[in-house]
């Protein structure tokens, strides 16, 4: 009796696992690699966390080791490291304005973290933590709170004027202000949903077509070509989404620094 009760859930779990292995959504599954419990806090080291650590290591290697020779005439690797730096520096200057320069390390980190996170989903057995809404939303929330703090630090109480666009008739204020507030609050939502949805859709699509390769046997080369092209497109989108995410952050920063 005891054995039956315990055995059944194990069995169904096994079956679920087999079924999910073929599901295009299986790649997004969170696995607790090292369960860690601190008090009530579940801080388990998951596959998501593993790839976040990968990201930190990869970016550090890319930038720190890439610059280790510190050559005046850079090699290919160093050029790439410098290029990424210049790319973000230009973005910060063009989008957030010269004052945004102070936030450059954060924006650079953000871009690298999102970009590498997106890319890691392309790697076989990889995992894109940016395809998890909780991750993208948490990042967006950090940005949102940070930008709001910057706005209030810079403009003080006048930052509330952000919610009353200049030229609005006072009579319209009771309607305009809630709308503006909702619009402002929707920023982290749209920011995170856009990245999450792109990563989810792209990686699912690739997995679906990859599934076709297996099921179609000899004729699998057609979907294979498709997957190949799709992977190229996904790489582009992984980059573009990281770019968009970062540019919008710069834009919000610009709004907070300059208001209207």
């Amino acid at each position: 009796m005891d054995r039956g009760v315990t055995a059944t859930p194990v069995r169904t779990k096994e079956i679920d696992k087999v079924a999910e292995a073929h599901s295009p959504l299986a790649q997004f599954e969170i696995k607790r690699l090292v369960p860690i419990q601190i008090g009530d806090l579940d801080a388990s080291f998951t596959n998501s966390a593993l790839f976040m650590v990968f990201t930190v290591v990869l970016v550090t290697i890319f930038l720190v080791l890439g610059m280790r020779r510190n050559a005046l005439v850079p090699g290919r690797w160093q050029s790439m490291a410098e290029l990424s730096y210049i790319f973000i520096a230009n973005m910060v200057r063009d989008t957030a304005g010269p004052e945004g320069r102070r936030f450059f390390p954060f924006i650079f980190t953000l871009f690298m973290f999102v970009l590498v996170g997106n890319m890691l989903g392309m790697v076989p057995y990889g995992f894109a933590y940016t395809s998890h809404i909780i991750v993208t939303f948490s990042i967006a929330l950090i940005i949102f709170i940070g930008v709001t703090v910057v706005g209030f630090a810079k403009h003080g109480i006048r930052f509330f004027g952000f919610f009353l666009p200049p030229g609005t008739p006072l009579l319209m204020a009771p309607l305009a202000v809630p709308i503006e507030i909702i619009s402002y609050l929707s920023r982290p939502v749209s920011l995170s949903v856009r990245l999450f949805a792109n990563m989810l859709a792209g990686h699912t699509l690739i997995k679906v077509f990859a599934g076709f390769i297996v099921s179609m046997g000899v004729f699998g080369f057609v979907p294979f070509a498709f997957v190949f092209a799709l992977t190229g497109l996904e790489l582009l989108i992984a980059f573009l989404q990281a770019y968009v995410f970062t540019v919008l952050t710069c834009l919000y920063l610009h709004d907070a620094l300059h208001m209207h």
Partner: protein
Amino acid sequence: MSAESPPEPDLEDLDSRLKQARDNIRGPFEKKEGNEPLRSAVGLAFRVTVELVSALAVGLGIGWVLDEWLGTRPWLMILFILLGGAAGMLNVYRLAMSSGGSRGNGDTGKDQGNR
């Protein structure tokens, strides 16, 4: 003696070349660059949807929380869904304005959408 003498190093020419070289080495925070991000109709449509849905969701959330708090279910939720819709429209309007090149108080033309 020979017919072809090497080109005379012209000092005027050197001047312009020096100027050009100087323009090329401005620092990362000063460099001017004019590349327009690519934009696609699908990307824009996706962005519009995201903006609308996000604002609606925020409106719904605020309405729901206020209703819970004040016990006015479902009126504030309905009101804030409407406000959320309006905010979504505002977001889309600003997105459209920024796409057109002019500037609203929110997003400017630098951003782009994809899918």
